[in-house]
C-alpha cells in the first residue's frame, strides 16, 4: 500500500471510467539495472527485505547461488545466476536482478477483476493495493514476466512496489540506495533510457557487440529496464524476447467482456419483445374432452 495520493492514480484495475487526470506534470520514473556492473552480492535483496519488513522462510540450497530460487510472496526481488554460452566455448556468468518490470501497459492490471486492487501511478509505478485484492490469481495470468506471487497464508498477491512509498516522498527505491557498485540507478525514464543507451555503447566498445537496453515495446516499455550484455538473446536470462500481454488475456479482458454482456442482456431484451409481439403459446381449450 503506497503513500501516494489518489490524484496520482492514473489507471485502476476493473474500472470503466477515467481515473483523475489533472496531475500532468509528474515525470515518469524508471529503474535501470546494469548487469555489467552487478557483482551478485544480493545487497538489493537485503535492502528490499529491510525496507519492506519482509522475512522469507529459510529455504534450502538448490546447488547454485540463487537464494531463494525464485520470487516468492515475501521475496520481491531475487538475484538470478545463469551460466551460459552465448557462443560455443565461451562460458559466461550472467547475473540478473529479477522482479516486477513495472510495464507501461501492465497485464496484471488488465486482468485484475477487483476495482482498485492494482493501480498505475502517474510516475509509471504499478502497485498492488492489498486491501482490495481478492486472491483470484488473474494477475498471474496477465503478467508477461511471471512476477506476481500469491501467498498461501493470506491469498493476496505480492510483488515489487518499486518502493512507491519512498519514491512518493522523493527517495529512491531501497535496492538502488544500497547497491554498492552502482549497478542499479533510478531517475526519470528519459534519463535512464539515455544512460542505458550510453552504457550499452560503452559495453559494445569493450567487446559486447550485442549489448543493449531492455525496454520492451510490446508492453509499452517498462519502468524497470536492464542493460544486457547480450540484448539480442534476453532468453539467456529467462527474459522474454518480445513480451506482450498474451492474446488470450487480451480477448478475455477485452472483446469478450462487452460482447458477452451485450449478448446476455440482448437475449433478455429479445425475449421480452418476442413475448410482447407474438404473445404466449396457450393451451388449446378442449371442451369435448374429459
Amino acid at each position, binding site marked *: 500500500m503506497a503513500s501516494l495520493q489518489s490524484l496520482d492514480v492514473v489507471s485502476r484495475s*476493473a474500472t470503466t471510467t477515467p481515473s483523475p487526470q489533472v496531475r500532468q506534470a509528474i515525470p515518469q520514473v524508471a529503474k535501470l539495472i546494469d548487469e555489467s556492473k552487478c557483482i551478485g552480492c544480493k545487497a538489493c535483496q537485503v535492502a528490499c527485505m529491510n525496507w519492506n519488513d519482509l522475512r522469507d522462510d529459510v529455504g534450502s540450497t538448490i546447488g547454485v547461488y540463487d537464494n531463494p530460487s525464485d520470487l516468492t510472496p515475501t521475496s520481491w526481488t531475487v538475484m538470478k545466476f545463469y551460466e551460459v554460452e552465448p557462443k560455443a566455448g565461451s562460458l559466461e556468468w550472467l547475473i540478473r536482478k529479477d522482479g516486477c518490470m513495472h510495464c507501461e501497459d501492465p497485464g496484471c492490471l488488465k486482468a485484475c*477483476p477487483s*476495482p482498485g486492487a492494482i493501480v498505475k501511478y502517474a510516475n509509471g509505478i504499478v502497485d498492488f493495493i492489498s486491501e482490495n485484492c481478492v486472491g483470484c490469481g*488473474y494477475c*498471474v495470468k496477465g503478467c508477461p514476466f511471471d512476477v506476481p506471487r500469491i501467498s498461501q497464508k493470506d491469498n493476496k498477491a505480492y510483488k515489487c512496489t518499486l518502493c512507491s512509498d519512498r519514491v512518493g516522498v522523493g527517495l529512491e527505491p531501497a535496492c538502488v540506495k544500497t547497491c554498492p557498485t552502482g549497478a542499479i540507478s533510478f531517475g526519470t525514464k528519459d534519463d535512464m533510457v539515455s544512460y542505458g543507451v550510453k552504457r550499452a555503447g560503452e559495453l559494445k566498445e569493450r567487446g559486447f557487440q550485442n549489448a543493449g537496453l531492455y525496454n520492451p515495446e510490446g508492453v509499452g516499455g517498462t519502468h524497470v529496464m536492464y542493460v544486457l550484455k547480450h540484448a539480442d538473446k534476453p532468453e539467456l536470462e529467462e527474459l522474454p524476447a518480445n513480451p506482450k500481454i498474451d492474446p488470450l*488475456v487480451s480477448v*478475455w479482458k477485452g472483446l469478450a467482456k462487452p460482447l458477452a454482456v451485450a449478448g446476455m442482456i440482448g437475449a433478455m431484451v429479445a425475449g421480452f419483445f418476442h413475448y410482447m409481439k407474438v404473445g*404466449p403459446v396457450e*393451451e388449446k381449450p378442449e371442451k369435448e374432452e374429459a
Partner: protein
Amino acid sequence: MMGKMLQRYKDGDRMNHWFIALMFVLAGLSGLAFFHPSFFFFVNLFGGGPWARILHPFLGLLMVIGFVGMFFRLWRDNLITDADRAWRKEMGRMLKGDKAGLPPVGKYNYGQKMVFWLMTLSLVVLLVTGVMFWRPWFAPYFSIEAMRVAVLLHSASAVVLILSTIMHVYAAIWVKGTIRAMTRGTVTESWAKTNHPLWHQEVTKGR
C-alpha cells in the same frame, strides 16, 4: 375445471432441478462479478470480494454435481432423432407464433434438447477449466499458459450456459402451463396435447 392432470416430473426430479437452479444463480452471480467490473457489486451478496472468490468454485461444483443427477435422469429423452430434424425446419414458424402444422413432438422438442446438450457441454467445460485455476488448491499444478486458455474457455462456456438458461426460462414463461411442471410436477392434459402430443399418447396409453 382444470381437466385431467398428467404427472411430468416426480418429486426427486423437481428437487434436483431447483437445486441446480439455485446453484446456477449463486455461481452465476459470483462468477459474473469477476467477469465484468459492472457486475462486481454482486460480490456484496457473498460477503465481499474474497468470500465471493472462495465460494464461487464450491457453488459451481455443487451445480455440476446436481446436474450429473439430472443428466442421468434425462439424457435418453434428449437424444436427437430424425423427427427433431424435421421439427427444426419448422422452428422459425413457431417462433413467429404460428404453431399449426408443427411436427408432433415427444417428451422434449428439438429446442429443449439443444438446451439440454448446450448446458451439459458448457458445464463440462466449466468444471474442467474451473478446476485448472481454482486457487489455492489446483491452480499451482497448471502452467500459466494453460490457465490463460482455461480462463477464456471458462468465461465463454459460462456465457453459453447463461444464454441457454435465458432460453430455457423464456420458453417456460412463453409456453403457458409449463412452469407448473416444475413447481407442482403436473401439467394439464390439454397442455400435453398442445405441446407434446407424442408424449401425451405415451403416458395415456392403456388407460
